[in-house]
């Protein structure tokens, strides 16, 4: 293992990995130490964070996924298309993608619609595509956490997306546990006990806990019954999945080294 000199500035890719909780433990330790004393790198990280937030905000405001009343062609894709190969006549008549899609989807749905394989989500999908059910609402955050109270310990309530939910934890910390359990409630609750050096950020489909390696906070996350899987990502480690019986009965993960 090589030791870095603490005055060496963080590279662009390292800053991005910090922002995305993608650092391994040694990289994270170095970054935390360096950022405490290097205002230049701290400023670059802030800029990167602000830029990412700006882009995310615009993407959410554009709400492409909500459907369109007016078609806004993507110039980038049009440009890609102009560079593309000549499309055969059969495809010109109608896009090949749309020609056979329904037949093939129907065939696959026969497979999926068996009692063993078909979940309510897939049935909902079928019903939705047949126009029998409304489009499922996207996730909604009921209340943003109050960073001040969260840092002193507190409770955050929010509605995670149905199906799978992701929880990101910035780093391994000194001590503490994470308990996850599914319940009958309609929203999710994150309770933070004894949080020092930790704070949550709730976004549309995920929950991020920005903890410091010195934190000893413990977290209790209760998710609604419609969440069938929680994926836990701790920086530098392989993602863990909590699902099925484990999720219904509850699981406790150690966050301390």
């Amino acid at each position, binding site marked *: 293992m090589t030791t870095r000199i603490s005055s060496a500035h963080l590279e662009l890719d390292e800053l991005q990995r910090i922002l995305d909780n993608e650092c391994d433990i040694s990289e994270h330790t170095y970054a935390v130490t360096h950022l405490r004393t290097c205002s230049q790198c701290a400023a670059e990280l802030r800029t990167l964070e*602000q830029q990412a937030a700006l882009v995310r905000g615009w993407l959410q405001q554009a709400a492409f996924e909500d459907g369109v009343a007016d078609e806004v062609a993507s110039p980038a*894709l049009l440009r890609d298309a102009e560079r593309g190969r000549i499309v055969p006549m059969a495809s010109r008549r109608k896009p090949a993608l749309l020609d056979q*899609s329904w037949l093939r989807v129907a065939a696959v749905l026969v497979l999926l619609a068996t009692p063993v394989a078909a979940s309510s989500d897939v049935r909902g999908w079928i019903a939705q595509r047949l126009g029998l059910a409304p489009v499922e609402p996207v996730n909604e955050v009921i209340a943003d956490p109050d960073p001040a109270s969260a840092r002193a310990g507190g409770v955050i309530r929010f509605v995670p*997306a149905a199906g799978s939910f992701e929880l990101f934890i910035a780093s391994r910390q000194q001590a503490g546990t994470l308990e996850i359990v599914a319940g009958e409630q309609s929203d999710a609750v994150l309770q933070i006990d004894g949080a020092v050096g930790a704070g949550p950020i709730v976004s549309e489909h995920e929950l991020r806990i920005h903890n410091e390696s010195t934190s000893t906070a413990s977290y209790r996350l209760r998710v609604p019954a419609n969440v069938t899987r929680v994926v836990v990502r701790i920086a530098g480690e392989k993602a863990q999945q909590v699902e099925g019986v484990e999720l219904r009965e509850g699981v406790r993960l150690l966050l301390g080294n």
Partner: protein
Amino acid sequence: MSVTEQHATELYAELYEPLRRYLARFTGDADLAADIAQEAFVRLLERPPESAARPWLFRVATNLARDDRRARTRHRLLGFRGRAQLAHADPPPSPEQAVDRTTARQLVNRALEALSPKERMALLMREEGFAHREIAEAVGTTTGSVGTLLARAIAKAASRLQQPQED
């Protein structure tokens, strides 16, 4: 790793909405995004990938979106109107909301246009919570280079979004 029906069902529950949203942003067309997302899942079952399914699904869907857009552009050039606008179940937005949304879509499209295909794909996959390793697999690069790819993509997009609108 083969994709069993049960696994496909789980993947569907986990990934359909993120994939549809990603494609809607990528193509600017929510209906097309839904069609392509379905098609990608059909292909997942018909031809299960050897590699990890999550990045594979996004890569295949991105390729389908590009192919479909090419075909649709040719239709326009040949005088077809293209796909008719489908009726939408949601209530229509108010005029003010429609203007805001249209403006936002135009701005975002211009920002995404400034990116290379790889940058665009990486940025939009990041928005869906993908790890760098998965983005690397989908984009066809190394995990180590994803940080730089993303940082540049975000900076470029943010720069375009902050520029005044040009007509």
